[in-house]
């Protein structure tokens, strides 16, 4: 019973943390655009949170630069269990055009485990929304 309530509440209100790991900003504005009136993810109970300690879902963009690698791992560790990671954009999946540049790790999954990948350069807000919904479906 308690288990079911916990699962239900987790599904109904995922709190997200938006993390930029060296992205070109386009994916980031699309993540923010998903919060604004046209797409409005807040109606699905999604709230953007400022600190990793409040978040359930980390939405991360960017190819992970070497400089920020340690911080990402730290942020991932600060997020309470259960935690989920959505990699938004071609960058976070594989490095996109930056593949081969000397200062990137080439994808988020090189650093932390990833649950859902949202492709696109940049991923459209509707695609990001779809990613969140798919993630909730797996709970």
């Amino acid at each position: 019973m308690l288990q079911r309530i916990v699962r239900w509440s987790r599904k109904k209100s995922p709190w997200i943390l938006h993390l930029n790991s060296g992205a070109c900003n386009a994916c980031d504005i699309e993540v923010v655009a998903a919060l604004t009136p046209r797409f409005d993810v807040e109606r699905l109970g999604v709230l953007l949170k400022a600190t990793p300690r409040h978040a359930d879902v980390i939405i991360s963009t960017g190819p992970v630069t070497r400089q920020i690698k340690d911080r990402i791992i730290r942020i991932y560790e600060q997020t309470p269990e259960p935690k989920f990671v959505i990699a938004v954009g071609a960058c976070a999946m594989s490095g996109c055009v930056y593949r081969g540049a000397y200062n990137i790790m080439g994808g988020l999954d090189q650093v932390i485990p990833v649950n859902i990948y949202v492709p696109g350069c940049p991923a459209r807000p509707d695609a990001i929304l779809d990613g969140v919904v798919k993630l909730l479906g797996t709970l």
Partner: protein
Amino acid sequence: MKFTVPIGPQHPALKEPISLRMTLEGEVIRDADIRLGYNHRGLEKLAEEKTWLQNIYVTERICGICSHSHATCYTQGVEKLMEIEPPKRGIYLRFLVAELERVHSHLLWLGVAGHEAGFDTFFMYTWRDREVVMDILEMVSGNRVHYAINTLGGVRRDIDDLQKKKILDSLDFLRRRSEFYFKIGANEPSFVARIAGVGRLSKEDALALCAVGPTARASDISQDVRKDDPYGMYAEVPFEVATATSCDVLGRVVVRVKELMQSYNIIEFLLKNLPDGPVAVRAPRRAKPNEVVSRYEAPRGENIHYIKSNGTDKPERLKVRAPTLANYPATVVMLRNGFIADIPLIFAAIDPCICCAERAVVLVDGRSGEEKIVLMSELRKQAHERWKKAPLKKDAVWPF
């Protein structure tokens, strides 16, 4: 008593990774130190491995908000290197997208400024209207953010009369909305009280610190590459350079809203006078050895690309000076003697685009003058070794 507060690299008030170190006395900022590098990807080096055409897509991804600015700045330069002249219709379409991008960027910024000032309704309004611009851009180019409409020698897509009409209709709507924002921005007492007098940058300071773009224009410096050194077809287009005299965040809001209005006029002019003909010419694969500096007025200020070719199909050197980098010294002055609660507002007011302005550090050996770029792990190893060898400080005192 002075103490230092680190902000970032991941911080609620910042959308992008950057680290600020503030030296505070009570609530007053005495000094600020900006640290970069969290977003550095090494694009300039990467560009040397790709062909001229591939590099359009690389430069476009320097930044997602002013992607067209970087791509156009680069393409302009390369066209000069290759000695080709894009057809007139191509140029008109290219700068049509450029002005649309300015509109979307300024609307985005207005929203962010409203959000940082605690006026979230404004944020939601401007971002809703921004979607109208995004729709136009998607219709014209096929993508919402990275338009990829530039190619060497012109643009990749043409527009038809139906699209033209749609854009003109949307312009009416956007004009009406922007007038409304102007009214709010100038008359809403609590909003004005929050932003007036915050982040002062005097005209002398702005000149001395080489501020660019709306930051400089809000300090009463009439400086705009589109007017001062017209590129493309800007010499034929009638428009005014928007300035403000108040030298604070309020002035920066006013300048940007005025620029929105100018951009609508430019877009209308371009659409009404769109010449007929092809949109692109064929570009050669190689460029003769030469070098070029290309200037472009991005939404955030002057963008400079330096390109050097060596006769092959790849650039030998690409150097990018993004407008945000030019504005950092001015930001430090703006932050000084401000309050800690004003940091996000002041910082947002230069419209920072951190990913544009990333830099790597080259270490210069003081004794031999030898330059090298080292890996972080290498640097850490060196630091450990040095620390092991360092003599123990016996009389060290705890700093209190």
